[in-house]
Every structure is written in C-alpha cells, then in structure tokens.
C-alpha cells in the first residue's frame, strides 16, 4: 500500500500550509531525510523531508496549493508497488486541497488583457502583466522615460492583492503626487495587516484601564537586579516581573486566557504569554510558554533569548506562535495609555503605559508615587467588563504587593 505524505503541523496555531516548491518529481527515487518539498506558512518557509525511502509516486498538492494540516500532499511508493496501487483521491473525505484563489483582475473582467504596442514597457514586464491580467495603463514606469519595468508590474500585482474589497470594483490607480512613494508590503507587514483586520472586524473590542502604583515592584526589581545579573548575566526588566504577575493572574482568571471558536469558548490549557516585540518591518510576538510555571529567573532568561532571536529574525515558528495572551509595553516611549488590538485567537491583550511620578492621596496625605496605566483590550464575545475588571484588579494587587507572589 502506498504511503500517504500529509501536511505536517509545525506550530500550535498552524492550520494550513502552502506548497512553495517540489524538490522531487513524480517517479524520482527519494531517500529518507531528503527534502521532498518546501512549504510556507504565514511566518516561515520549511523544508519537508521524506519520512522514508521510496519513490515519489504521485504529487497530489501542486505548487501554490493550500493544504490543511493533515491533508494529503503526495503518495510514496515502495519498490514493487505500482502507480495503480494509489487509491483515487477521495473527495470531501477530510482531504481538502484547494487551489489558491487567483488574484482578482483589476478590471473585474475575465478576458485577457492585451497591451497595446505603443506602451513603453520592457518585454519581461509585458509578459508578467499579460499573464497576471494587469492593466498597465495605470502603472507609472520607473525606467528611462517612464518605461515600465518588471518591478513596477510586480508592485502593481502586490498592491492589487491587498485590496480586499468584496465586490470587485474597479480600483482607481493610486494617484501619485511628486514626492509620494509606494512601499511594497513585506510578508510580515502583509500578515500583520491581515490579522489585525481579521481581529478588529471579527471581535468586538472594549477597553478598561486601571492605574497602579509601581513603587513596591520597582523596589523589588532593584533588589533582584544584581542577583539576577550575577547568576544569569541578564538585566531583570520590569516586563519580566509583569509576565510573572500576569501569568499568575491568568491562571486564576481562565476566561481572560481563552479563545472564541465560533460556537464555543475554548479555555486554553496553558498560559503562554506573548510579548509584542518590534522588529524593523513590524511586530513579532515571541512566546514565553507556561509562564505561570516558570520562576522569575527562567522568565528573564527566556525573554532575553527570545527577544534577541526575534530581532535577528532567527526565531523558529514554534517560538513565535501559540501565545494565549499578549503583553505590549510601549511605556518606554512615554505613552501613558492606549487600546491595543487583540492578537487572534486570543481574547485579551494588555497594554502597558509609562510610569509617571504623580501626586496621589495615601491615608489622607498627598504623596508622590510612580504610577502606571494598564489597559486591557477585551474580546467581548468571550467575557464581560466585570470579569476583565477582576483580572485587572488582581494584577494591580500583585504589582502593588509583590510579596503575594510567593504565596
């Protein structure tokens, strides 16, 4: 019986993968461990190795096909087996192979565009435009005397893909004033754009803010800094302490550590805290797994390692997916409060503002205290204001009385 090659699950949140390239052809002999094909997920590309030696019998998923996790990708044959040993591909039997939707033509029409002879365009750009049905009359050429080059057409195709308007309306070309610049989207930027739209459109956000006094926690941090530095050569950050506290509060408030899954609410079994980290082209969320079970030292170590990896773009898919709650700290820029967009499939995100010395009243006296705002964005489908308030209250309590952490 032929062996099925199926789409692997590379990360917790991976649902599907795109076949980018077949390294082997049908009929090729393949050794175990050789690269069969390259797959791309939202965040990484991955070389998939052959699980056993044999012959690549039949390729089911072609290049650019999107295949769900577990979906059939190809069949491998053992010596002696014939192509006829491969069963007919069952349809609708949990094996879904769908081709990527072709990009919507700008004109909305189905007929092929032909480019008039008098258009100044390079032969290569002409070919790319014709094959992708791009109306070049709207493109501003970057070559000598406005000649349209490959890059110009590719950019037009990219821009077209990002237009998600449902009815295929004719999009007016971007009017370019002198000095305007079109910046094509990086893959990361595209992912961020898609996920943020998805989050903001599908989950009703609402925001609650609490003000906390960070004096005690900062004092604790100062006490711990030399110790951690000596032990692990890492500077303990305020964020590390916050991860510890938030993880503990999440453990106690499972609805904040949850996800809306259509007809039910899924409470995550683990508390995986994501840290929104800015990189050159955007934002990546490295994940501190089971943060509620880690010591502060472990959190600091993992955080330092992950942030470096992410900034160097060396983090694995596993390290940047699967968070169940996200913290975004933009206090260092002097931001005092704001409302973050939830990182799906989570149902909450905590925005940390800057700590500001403020006059506050303590025991009837005006005293100066370091104060900080925490804003929780809530997916209202999952839980309500009161539940959110209780969670924030608990976080406040732990920040102001860090001794409770050892209870």
């Amino acid at each position: 019986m032929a062996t099925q090659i199926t789409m692997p699950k590379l990360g917790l949140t991976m649902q599907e993968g795109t076949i980018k390239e077949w390294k082997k052809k049908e009929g090729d002999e393949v050794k175990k461990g050789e690269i069969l094909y390259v797959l791309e997920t939202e965040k990484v590309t991955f070389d998939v190795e052959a699980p056993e030696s044999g012959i690549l019998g039949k390729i089911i998923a072609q290049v650019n096909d999107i295949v769900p996790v577990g979906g059939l990708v190809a069949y491998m044959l053992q010596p002696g087996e014939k192509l006829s040993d491969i069963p007919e591909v069952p349809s609708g039997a949990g094996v879904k192979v769908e081709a990527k939707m072709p990009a919507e033509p700008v004109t909305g029409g189905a007929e092929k565009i032909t480019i008039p002879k008098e258009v100044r365009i390079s032969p290569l750009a002409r070919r790319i435009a014709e094959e992708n049905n791009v109306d070049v009359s709207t493109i501003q050429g970057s070559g000598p005397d406005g000649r349209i080059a490959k890059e110009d057409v590719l950019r037009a195709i990219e821009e077209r893909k990002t237009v998600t308007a449902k009815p295929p309306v004719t999009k007016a070309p971007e009017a370019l004033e002198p000095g305007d610049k079109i910046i094509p989207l990086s893959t990361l930027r595209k992912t961020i754009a898609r996920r943020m739209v998805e989050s903001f459109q599908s989950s009703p956000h609402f925001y609650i803010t609490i003000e906390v006094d960070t004096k005690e926690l900062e004092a604790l941090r100062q006490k711990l800094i030399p110790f951690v530095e000596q032990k692990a050569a890492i500077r303990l950050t305020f964020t590390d302490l916050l991860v510890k506290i938030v993880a503990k509060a999440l453990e106690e408030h499972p609805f904040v550590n949850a996800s809306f899954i259509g007809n039910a609410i899924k409470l995550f079994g683990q508390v995986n805290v994501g840290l929104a980290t800015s990189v050159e082209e955007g934002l990546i969320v490295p994940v501190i797994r089971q943060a509620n079970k880690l010591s502060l030292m472990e959190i600091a170590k993992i955080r330092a390692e992950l942030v470096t990896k992410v900034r160097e773009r060396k983090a694995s898919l596993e390290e940047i997916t699967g968070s169940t709650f996200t913290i975004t700290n933009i206090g260092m820029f002097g931001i005092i409060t704001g409302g973050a967009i939830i990182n799906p499939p989570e149902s909450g995100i905590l925005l940390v503002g800057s700590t500001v010395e403020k006059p506050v009243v303590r025991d009837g006296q005006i005293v100066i205290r370091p104060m900080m705002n925490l804003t929780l964005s809530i997916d209202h489908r999952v839980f309500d204001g009161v539940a959110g308030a209780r969670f924030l209250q608990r976080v406040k309590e732990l920040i102001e009385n860090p001794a409770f952490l050892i209870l």
Partner: protein
Amino acid sequence: MSEVKKNIIVIGSGVGGYVAAIRAAQLGAKATVIERADTLGGTCLNRGCIPTKALLKSAEVLSLAKGAETFGVHIDKAWIDLPLAMKWKGATVSRLVNGVNSLMKKNRITVVKGTGTIIDPKTVMVLESKEKIKGDNILIASGSKPLRIPIKGINEPGIMTSDDALAMERLPQSILIIGGGVVGLEFAQIFSRMGAKVSVVEMMPQILPAEDAEIAGALERALKKEGIEIITEAKVTGIATKQDEKKVSFTTKDGTAYERIVGGVLVAVGRGPNTDDLGVEKLGISMDKGRIVVNERMETTIPGIYAAGDVVGKMMLAHVAMEEGKCAVENMMGLSSRVNYQVVPRCTYTSPEVAAVGLTEAEARKKYPDVKVGRFPFIGSGRALTLNETEGMVKFVVDAKYGEILGVHILGPEASELIAEAVLAMQMETTYKDIGSCIHAHPTLSEAMMEGALAVDGKTINF
C-alpha cells in the same frame, strides 16, 4: 563660457575619480582632481586592468606562435623577451594615461599633484604643499591597494603583490600564487605561458569563488590542461625564504600538509580600501571594515562629502567605480542618480575568458522556485572552430515562469565582449526568448549567445 555652477574636488584620479570629474564638467561644474601618484589613472590604468591585459596579450602571442603549426605556419623560434614585453605594457599604459591627461584639459579640469587630506567638508589640503583647496563638494575616490594576509614569512623580500609582479625584471622559474580569484588566475596564465611553473592555492572550494561553479570548474580544467597546478580548499600556513628560493607550506581541507619550493610568490588575495592620509577618521566619516560607508546616492555620513569606487568597496570593479563616480557627481549637481548593482558584468581575462552577469545557477535556485538552464558549448560554433578556441560554453540561467534572464555565464573566446549582449538584455528586461529570436551574424561567436538562449527550451540548432 557659462558660469560655474559648483566647485567639486575629487581625491584620486582613478577610473572612479577622473570619470566623475568629466561628468561634473559636463554638468557645468568646475572640477579639481588631486592625485598623489606621478601619473593619472589610478590602479586600473597603471597597476590593474590595463597593464595585466597588455601582458596577457604578450603571453597569448607567444602561445599562438608556439602553436602556429596548427594553422599551417612555421615559426622557427618563439620566446619571451620580458624587458621588451614590459616595454610594450608600459607603452600601452602611457598612451592611455596621456589620453586621460588630454581629457582633463578638454574638460577644463584642474589637476593638482599631491596627497589630499580633507580638513572640513568644504576644504581639502594638499599635504606636500599645504595648499588649501575650497569646494562645494568633495568626492573621495582614493581606490584600493593589494591586501596582504597574516601568514608567517609574508613580509620577506621577494614576495610580490600584483603591483610588484607588473614591475618585475626577471621571470621566476617557478611561482606559487596565493589566491585563485581574477587577479591570481590572470597572473597564473601570464607566468605559465611565459614559461614559469605555476601553482595556484585557493582557500575556497572553487577558483573564482563568486562565479558559477560549473564555469569555474571548466576553467580549472582548462588551466590545468595548460600545466598550471591548482589546489583548492587549501590554506597557506607559512613561507620560508632561503636565498633565492621560497618554501611555501599549505594545508588542504582534509588536513594534508603540502610544500612547494618555488622561485617566487605572488599574493593575490584581494584588495582593501585605501583611506591613508584622507583624514576620514578625524572628520568622523562612518567606516565599515575599512570601507567608507555611503548611501545609495554615494553620500558619506558627512553632508557634502561623497565617495565612490574601491574605497566604498561595494563591488571592486573599474566599471562599477565609473558608474558610482558619475552617480555621486550627478547627485551633487541636483540630479537623482542610483547605481544598479544587479546588472554588472564581471570578467576574467584568462584564455579561455570568463564573463558573467547576474545570478549564478546556485544563487538563482535559492531565489526562484523554477529555474531553467540552457547551455551551448563553443565546440558547436563554427567561428570558434576557425579560431581553434572551442573550449567553454555559454550558459543561460532563466526563471521558467516569466522567462526572465537571471544570469548569463560565459567561458570561452571573447567572453568579455560577448557578455555585453546579456547585460543589455538584462538591463532592458528582455526575456531569453528575445535573444533566441534575434538574428546573429554568421559566423560569429555571438551566435553562441543565441544558441544558449535557445538551449533553455532544448531548441539549440548546432548542438
């Protein structure tokens, strides 16, 4: 005469500097070139491209004369007269240098002899005369110098760089060349064809490490056939000098130690930027590994000061320096220029020659999902047969999806001339099919370009 729009000071009269000065003059600027060497033209004219090509010609003529019988010609005796060959080389250089001199006059460019040191973004001082020259902009085009690597014994007398080799008076009986790049290989052939026993030791797995592996491999075989010894993936560990002999030790990747006793050693491991006496550190111009950092307008980190050519070290090629120099002055003059580093030809003037533009096959396969390759060997070219130069091939690397030419690699006769067609094609973004459908004169070597393009789809005619 129209009024002077700007005063531009150019430090260095190599191909980066003098071309920039001419372009500046064309755009209405008054240019001043400061050169510390006795002659204009920098490395390319005096110690690089031109003199090596002149000596390669001597070597080629000798080789042709020795093999003249193939063509039905008897030549009784052919031998190399090195002083005479050097004279030919010197005369070629002089003619070109004189040409640059007259170009300077024609464009009313002031030439100042001396070493330029930048005092501030508007002033360059000539070290020798203490003369201060004022300008609106400064272009640093101070070039590069041969690198020496830290090997035991490398500073002993008699160990040559390319500068020394071009001035040699006596041909060594045997020579070991450290470095199998462009410079190392061109000298290998000069020495070998003139009668020396040549060994080339290269650290990387292939000679011409930046070039397509298939082409580099074919060149290696061709050079070995001529009697040149080539050892790759080997590191020179020490050089011991004993009277007129040098004992060179090196180790290959598998750990085997070798020794060669030779009459001469040439170090050809590359070139490093030359920023001596410029005052760049004092001004605080950003540097990276000795190179001056520039943006795509060729501006350094100090406003008003630009740099171009080997001193910025993006691609140490004369034609890149020219383009960078032009780009820099055009930006000084208010135009908006960029250098397209994607389409730059690279040439090695061995016989057979190597010329390439764009991506190697390996690079292309990394970047594009579906790459096709077309090859046409010169053995199928009538013109190559009449020249008795059938070694090598034309190799097209293309993107199967849209037919984009990703790279063209040539090993063979006149490769450095043939590559221009590929450069034009890539710059204009024609597809490989356009080259395949162009009529090429018969019999010419350029037919191999057409055939190579046709070969991508298996439609080559003569092979």
